[in-house]
């Protein structure tokens, strides 16, 4: 059984994992800001309140991506 190495990829699998993990929060943050823009477009006077809510939601959603970033470094090697 001879296995010839045609192409070899070396590196951290965790980076790949983080790339995949960032998809979800990316979509989530996009949805939040889409809704925020919609809301502001419909009711410009509610901007201040919506901004607070949007950033709270973004902080929550992005927390997942940031946890992923932590795990990249923690599970390296």
């Amino acid at each position, binding site marked *: 059984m001879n296995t010839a190495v045609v192409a070899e990829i070396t590196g951290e699998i965790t980076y790949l994992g983080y790339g995949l993990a960032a998809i979800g929060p990316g979509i989530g943050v996009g949805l939040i800001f889409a809704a925020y823009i919609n809301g502001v477009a419909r009711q410009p006077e509610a901007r201040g309140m919506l901004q607070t809510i949007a950033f709270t939601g973004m902080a929550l959603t992005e927390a997942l991506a*940031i946890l992923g970033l*932590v795990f990249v470094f923690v599970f390296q090697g």
Partner: protein
Amino acid sequence: MSLSVVPAHWLQGGLSAADEEGFQAPGIESFWWPLIGSDTSNWTLTRPAFVVMASVVIIGFFFLAVAGKLTVVPSKRQWVAEQAYGFVRNTIARDVIGAKDFRPFVPLLMTLFTLILFNNVMGILPFVQFPSMSRIAFPIVLTLIVYVVYHTVGLRRKHGVVGYLKSLVPPGLPVWLRPIMFFLEFLTYFIIRPLTLALRLFGNMLAGHLMLLVFILGGEYLLVHGSNLFVQASGILGLAFGIVMTFFELLVQFLQAFIFTLLSALYISDAVSEEH
């Protein structure tokens, strides 16, 4: 004790490695840059620490100079300071915390905003080009301060530990949902919020600077060591894209300073507000 412009381990590992096995991609070790001291010591004076101290001196002198001779009709320098101050005071503090309670938190938010913004912009300022917030220690310090502040304010406003913990659960929930909600809110308030606050800033700065390093070092490597014209042209393309990304970084840097300050204000306003 060695005073070095380029970190010693770059000279040891990086260049020899480049000769032997090709391009050495920039990594986390690129962010370690001691000025005085050894690699293993816990008390090494690093370059980002030096940048932070310098930034304190510069920001402090600038604002002290402006505050020393304030006039009703602003001069050019005062106008710049007033823009920053007005932005933090009105857009962030007053709009988020509320007109009633925002006054005592203005210095805190102002310190956070100017310190983060200045140190972020240091990431693309020529001859400095090191975002000190990409060293986790500084975001952790700032986050710890915000963490302590908003919990202290919450404990004071909501009548002690029990009242504060009770206030975590939104009113009007069915009984069976309350423990779950309490657990989630507790996690949010005590773990997720500080963790994300610090790591968001750190991650953005680290990733942004790493990206610039990849484009510029990679472009330079392709240009210098490229075997044919096509590779060298792509090296130039990489360098050009590095310049474009530098301006994108400027946007990100401002945005991160803004978001850090805004979220700090948001957490404080949660602690200050009576309901919830």
